[in-house]
């Protein structure tokens, strides 16, 4: 399988990464090189094989559903580029 330039633009948008027109052909070449490399996986017979969902067979640890941490909004927002009253500021999203 290989990707065309329209697909490259669509993937970039899905990934929320801006690409310039000059970058598209180059990215297309690199993505197609990787897709060509993984092509050989098609020859493996995976009939009846379960996909791996847990690296180590183990029951997921659980804990009581209770608040164990928090109460420090100033720390949580401390690294944010723009905040106001412990809210993260973004451009207007609702008209």
């Amino acid at each position, binding site marked *: *399988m290989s*990707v065309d330039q329209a697909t490259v633009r669509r993937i970039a948008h899905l990934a929320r990464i801006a690409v310039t027109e000059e970058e598209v052909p180059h990215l297309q070449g690199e993505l197609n090189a990787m897709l060509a490399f993984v092509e050989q996986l098609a020859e493996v017979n995976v009939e009846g094989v379960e996909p*791996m969902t847990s690296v*180590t067979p*183990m029951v997921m*640890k659980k804990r009581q559903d209770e608040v164990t941490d928090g109460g420090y909004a100033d720390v949580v927002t401390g690294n944010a580029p723009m905040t106001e009253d412990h809210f993260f500021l973004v*451009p207007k999203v609702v008209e």
Partner: protein
Amino acid sequence: MTDATALTLAEARDALRAKQVSATEITQAFLAAMEKARGLNAYVLETPEQALAMAKASDERLARGEARPLEGLALGIKDLYATKGVRTTAGSNILGNFVPAYESTVTSNLWRDGAVMLGKLNNDEFAMGSSNETSAFGNVVSPWRRQGSNTPLVPGGSSGGSAAAVAARLCLGATATDTGGSIRQPAAFTGTVGIKPTYGRCSRWGIVAFASSLDQAGPIARTVRDNAILLRSMAGPDAKDTTCVDLPVPDYEAAVGRSIKGMRIGIPKEYRVDGMPAEIEALWEKGAKWLRDAGAEIVEVSLPHTKYALPAYYIVAPAEASSNLARYDGVRYGLRVPGKDIVDLYEKTRAQGFGKEVRRRIMIGTYVLSAGYYDAYYVRAQKIRTLIKKDFEDVYAAGVDAILTPATPSAAFGIGEKGGADPVEMYLNDVFTVTVNMAGLPGIAVPAGFSSEGLPLGLQLIGRAFDEETLFSVAEVIEQAAGRVDLPQAWWA
């Protein structure tokens, strides 16, 4: 006391307890060495004040006879580990001046046991790379050079800063992480020892995520024993990581020097890849002979799905990365590039904040997870992963204790030499190590000899899940037989 930077971690520990040297003296010696070695670019941040304060506290405990397991031992920390109040970037511009308000579990464990932090070590951006050339801080220069040449070489990656700092005697040991070979390949390139423990042995909490089902923390240090000492402190249960196992941590150091007589060591025929350099093949045979001489039985084994591990990895790892790295949005932390609306802000921030390799991997991951391709790529790769794991399980069920392979297909290469046109050329570096991550098993790289150009070469041992002890015992035999590596003279100082 001779130069404290020449000591191994175990020697430094013993010298501290014998009061032949103080933690402050050791720390000062490393801080001075780091200053002279800035040209190697191994550290992206030096923390001398914190280091000296920690060393002073260690000296007080040592004086009171209350030394903890790593008391006063000076370490470097890969910049993928969140360190409270100390800038943590993962080698990326998108994290910019991120200063965590929390400490990773693994580094917390190290400080709990008395270790001293010298600074943060360079790495490939988000640990994506095999040469430390993708870091936003620029590449790391290996302390090693080819005989009679001044060509700068890569230290390997992604834990290139960790490996270079250990080999250049800029710390007693370092933390590292391994998603596809990022501990073992740089260890092999720099004549140092590095272990990727079993998935779930160390907590991933507070380590910047790359591919969560593959990432695992581990140490790089000068000897097998030093690795055993560090791993014992790094490993252990953690309620904050649901994939971290609730198993007690053995005394790994006790396994160093244990007899390997009667052990069965597997040699996987599928690792004899086309075009393998003769010196790698010879190194591998020499390693097998050393183990046979130590009383182990060498048996040929088969891991039939080996060749599919690397392509399957290049679906699974980018897919998980594209999901993990979605958090870098310019809103909550790190770089923000203004945009006309929120999507524009995301797209501009991520285009500017991520480097080329990271953007490429996010895009491939986004593609293989996108509607219509998920089953063909991601689900198929996860099925192949099941088959890869089963290959190992079958070999171990047949009575094999550990598997011996080369660590890398070649010695270290020059900066800028690989991956320029075709990214796959660089990815092939991990052909021997990536299988181990796919199966979640432990693997250790140990120096075993030198290339014709005088560069270190390493062997890899792969163990059963949660049997790091056998790896330490077998690796010690190789280390003893090969002889301690003479680290390069400080041409950079």
